[in-house]
């Protein structure tokens, strides 16, 4: 289980490969990998968005992301999880969050990955402030599923 908060841009696919390379105990054991990547759009709520600042409450964010990873591993039979979440200044097309779940079977990884993103959106203390052509504005709520 790994949770990292990053102040700089990252390549989610490279992160997955690096994690697998550095965890040889996974080799031959996982038959399913579920991945969620959240990416910044250049539009929201009817307006073009040129950039975004992601504020967070560092210690509480780390704690809650670790908590939801532990909860997922208690609910489903999974081998490992990886969460990377950005903070700071973000540009359109940059990844915001990467969630990965490894297990022997998809019946475990798919609901576990879904659980991680929904719980993260509900509980992890991050706040988005968007910059549009004419203003900056705080995003007041997440988009429902």
């Amino acid at each position, binding site marked *: 289980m790994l949770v990292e908060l990053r102040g700089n841009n990252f390549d989610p696919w490279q992160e997955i490969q690096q994690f697998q390379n550095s965890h040889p105990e996974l080799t031959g054991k996982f038959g399913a990998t579920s991945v969620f990547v*959240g990416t910044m759009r250049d539009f929201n709520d009817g307006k073009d968005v040129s950039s975004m600042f*992601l*504020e*967070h*409450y560092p*210690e*509480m*964010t780390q*704690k809650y992301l670790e908590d939801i990873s532990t909860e997922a591993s208690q609910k489903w039979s999974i081998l490992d999880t990886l969460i990377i*979440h950005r903070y700071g200044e973000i540009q359109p097309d940059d990844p*915001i*969050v990467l969630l990965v779940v490894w297990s022997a079977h998809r019946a475990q990884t798919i609901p576990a990955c879904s659980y991680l*993103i929904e719980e*993260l*959106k*509900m*509980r*992890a*203390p*991050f*706040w*988005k*402030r968007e910059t549009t052509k004419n203003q900056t504005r*705080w*995003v*007041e*709520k*997440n988009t429902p599923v």
Partner: protein
Amino acid sequence: MSITVKFFASLRETLNRDVCSVEPSDAHTAVDVWRIATNGSEFPENTLIAINMDYAKPEQPVADGDEVAFFPPVTGG
């Protein structure tokens, strides 16, 4: 010691402060901390509270050395 109070995101901007401290003898609950830290203002709807980095209710007790945070609904991911 004292109670450390933190404000985040739009709430921090509205109040124009990010951190302050409150004397524990004056505050018994999280909402007491809010009133003291904001000079008696009403606790706003939809504001979330964390005590020592766990979500809490407004009437939850606070103690010397606690960190109490106030913030709007979260929008990560």
